[in-house]
């Protein structure tokens, strides 16, 4: 700020001004209560986020245990002469994507999507879109995470402590007295400074509580790592910028000559538009612009593609299979009897039939994600939210990346088991220790790619709001003074009854 331009005695006056104002803000019962509530809610949300991460780890462990148990059970149940293909029909292999530490901050879609699919060697498209066991009523109520407290609720606190920063003094008639101690602009800067310190303290306390709860790394590790320090740094920067954006907006409105109540109504209106209406309208537009019929299409096609194969000669299915796996085209299956190689080739035929629909489905979701990302830049809270979700790898793109990782895993499993299936090898010939394990998806996009556009949008929006405030403070100080007498505090409301 401009503190540097003030001399040593001025600096003392500065700190005194700030301290005085801070103590006055804190004395208000409502402000203290709101701060305590926010802090409590934030700590609770951080704790819940941590619990979600633990639950995901437990689920991953459960999937792994279930796999071991099932394998042991299947091996013990079938006689050793049984073909491995029969056992593989049942075997479900875990594909667990760990949650990032940052997901405690921005839980994104983690409550809807499952990150613990268990994959069988059968047609993949039917297994890829399993839904998490959520209670729809709770999901419809919306979820509470730390980013909700910081992005949705904290701005209201900022608003509550700044909306009457000028008009309040005016209406109480204390503006003149305060001006004896400092110039209006300095006074304003001191008052804003005091509030930034207050809110900054609150955010820092929340961030530290959150970090200590989930053990988020504050620095280090590689930038592509989901838990990398770069991601935490960007997230912290975005939250700070977002909070400052609200300060700038409040300042832009509060320096006007309107009454406190008018300021409050305008700011609450802005908050409703930015955190509810604009995101909801964009979401609606997104859904209308990018419809997803392919979701149902691919279900229908995969089922039909697989089942039709039972009524076709095996050689026809195998021809289709060799198109995707030419390295196996020298292998043939008998025409008149059941073989497991043919069975899995029929499953592959189901995936082939659904492929176009599946790609189209994926494209639509990618388009939705891109569109949302682009247009969100006009709505700072939404841009922040999407960027945080991206940093925490809990957004739509990350979910698609997970599905791709599962697709790759399914292919690796096929590559591993096809020799066994074509050889019609019995169960004991499989070395279960060498079965490939799932490799989690790398987070979508680079860290700065995720954070930079949102940060730029926040900075630009803040500058615009500050310019408005600055112009008013520079060009219209007289007007501010003229409006000081408390009697004109509700310009919009005259006494209508008096006319009658």
């Amino acid at each position, binding site marked *: 700020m401009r503190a540097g331009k003030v001399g040593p005695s001025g600096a003392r006056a500065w700190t005194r001004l700030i301290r005085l104002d801070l103590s006055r803000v804190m004395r208000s019962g409502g402000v203290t209560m709101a701060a305590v509530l926010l802090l409590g809610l934030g700590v*609770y949300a951080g704790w819940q986020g941590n619990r979600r991460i633990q639950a995901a780890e437990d689920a991953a462990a459960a999937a792994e245990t279930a796999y071991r148990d099932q394998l042991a059970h299947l091996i013990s149940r079938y006689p050793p002469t049984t073909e491995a293909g029969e056992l593989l029909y049942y075997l479900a292999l875990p594909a667990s994507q760990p949650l990032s530490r940052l997901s405690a901050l921005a839980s994104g879609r983690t409550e809807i999507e499952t990150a*613990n699919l268990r994959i069988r060697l059968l047609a993949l498209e039917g297994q890829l*879109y399993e839904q998490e*066991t959520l209670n729809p009523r709770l999901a419809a109520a919306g979820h*509470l995470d730390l980013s909700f407290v910081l992005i949705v609720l904290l701005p209201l606190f900022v608003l509550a402590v700044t909306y009457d920063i000028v008009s309040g003094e005016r209406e109480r008639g204390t503006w003149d007295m305060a001006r004896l101690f400092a110039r209006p602009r300095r006074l304003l800067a001191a008052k804003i400074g005091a509030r930034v310190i207050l809110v900054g303290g609150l955010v820092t306390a929340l961030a530290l509580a959150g970090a200590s709860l989930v053990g988020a790394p504050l620095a280090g590790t590689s930038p592509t790592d989901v838990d990398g320090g770069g991601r935490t740094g960007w997230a912290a920067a975005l939250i700070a910028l977002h909070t400052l954006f609200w300060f700038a907006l409040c300042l832009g409105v509060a320096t006007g000559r309107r009454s406190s109540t008018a300021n409050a109504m305008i700011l609450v209106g802005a908050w409703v538009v930015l955190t509810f209406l604009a995101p*909801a309208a964009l979401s609606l537009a997104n859904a209308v612009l990018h419809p997803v019929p392919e979701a*149902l299409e691919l279900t*229908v096609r995969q089922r039909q593609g697989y089942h039709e194969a039972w009524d076709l000669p095996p050689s026809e299915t195998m021809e289709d299979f060799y198109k995707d796996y030419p390295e196996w085209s020298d292998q043939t299956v008998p025409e008149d009897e059941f073989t497991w190689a043919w069975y899995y080739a029929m499953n592959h035929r189901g995936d082939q039939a659904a492929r176009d629909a599946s790609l189209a489905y994926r494209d639509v979701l990618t388009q*939705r994600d891109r569109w949302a*990302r682009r247009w969100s830049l006009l709505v700072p809270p939404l841009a922040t939210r999407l960027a945080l979700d991206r940093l925490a790898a809990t957004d739509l793109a990350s979910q698609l990346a997970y599905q791709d990782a599962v697709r790759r895993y399914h292919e690796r499993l096929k590559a591993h088991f096809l020799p066994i299936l074509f050889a019609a090898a019995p169960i004991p010939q499989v070395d279960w220790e060498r079965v490939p394990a799932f490799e989690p998806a790398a987070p979508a996009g680079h860290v700065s790619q995720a954070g930079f556009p949102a940060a730029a949008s926040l900075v630009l929006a803040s500058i615009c709001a500050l310019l408005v405030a600055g112009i008013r403070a520079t060009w219209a100080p007289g007007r501010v003074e003229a409006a000081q007498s408390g009697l004109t505090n509700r310009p919009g409301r005259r006494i209508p009854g008096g006319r009658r």
Partner: protein
Amino acid sequence: MSNILLIARRQVGAMREDRYLVFLLGLVAALGIVSVLAARHHAASETEQRARYQAVVDRQWAQQPERHPHRVIHYGFLVFREEAPLAFFDPGVGAFAGTSLFLEGHRQNSASFGDARHATAMLSFGRLTPAAVLGLLLPLLIVAAGFASVTGEREKGTLPLILAQGATPAQIMAGKALGVGAAAVVAALPIALVTAAFVAAGGGDQPSIARMLALAATYAAYLSGWVLLTVLVSSRSASSRAALARLVAIWVVLCVAAPRLGGSLANALHPMPSRAQFTAQVEEAQRQVGDSHNPDDPFFSALRDEYLARYQVASVEELPVNWAGVVSREGEAATSRIIEQQHQQLLAVHRRQDRVMAWLGLLSPHLAARDLSMAAAGTGPEAVEAFRSQAEAHRYAIIQRLNDLHTHEINYENDRAQRLARQHWTEFPVFRQDPPSLRGVLADRPVSLAALGLWIALPLAGLGLGRKRLPRVGADRPSR
């Protein structure tokens, strides 16, 4: 009475003079209309799509070639959840429940492809639906219209004048509430009219008049509570500024924070197993039954001995029925029972969580109103569960019918090579969805109904108690 009307008119006049308020009112009314149109568009295309795919799937089923019945058990059946006709008004839990469900033998799949899964995080801020406009935005509009209803008079010094003209405090409160309520009616009317027009014009599935009335009653009660609370807070506050700050804080706590906190608390108190854990549990339980695909399984060898004794034969080949079909049928019965048990355990967790939410409705009328609204619109969790259980019943009936065909129409010898003629497939029943009745779902929500009643009764009682205090508070207004 005439005093009340005079004061109401005075309040309406004051609100009309307030350009912010007039702008806000226009905005909310416009948003209401837009939300109805958009939601209606979305719901119509969604319904059309599901109906189209259901027709495709039904045709594919009927046109199956000659197949072995067990093949058809795995071919299965796809059903698509029909949304209630009023889902466009309040989509309820619809977006978070799957829309398509694959019914096959040996397992109970979960419905997949909910709307929420195709949405970006934008959705997490809330949805622009008529129900959200009425439940979330209108209370805020009421606050804006009424926060200064009493404090304003006090600040202008007009309150003693009104009292001196013979209006009692109770009449002032009633008049103010009436005036503020008028603003709410003006904002809500376009939504009601457009919705009614759509319902009247739309053919086919008509939402019953009772459902519309239940919706209207729910929102009327909920919004009346807000009107009363606004006037109450205004009458008890020292200044308009304080009244506005208090009311906005109340709105944030009740409408924004409480639903999410409630959902989170319910989840924390009654945690649910993850999908991975749930399927592992089901498999574990199923292992106790054995595998109908494996004829040497102990469960099925006991069954075999029973059948051999009943028909007085020495081997399954001599049975007058196809043993493989019997095994498949009994296996299906046993696994279905186990899966349903597991599923009921999961639903029991849901119900415990729902109870937490219902009790929290006593603290946040927004939760109670939402609960009743989705019940009235027919988009509550019951509708989703009804679809699931009806689909499961349909699945079970179809699979067992196929097993019966297997038992009686297919010979045990050379079983797998035989096929059934195509006309069998056309004889299967079509899946019909039967939504839960309005009376039933409302009767299941005594706590929410009570919460909404309290939401009106408490501010009313507050206004009644504050009756005598009104002039005294007026005397110490700050502007004198």
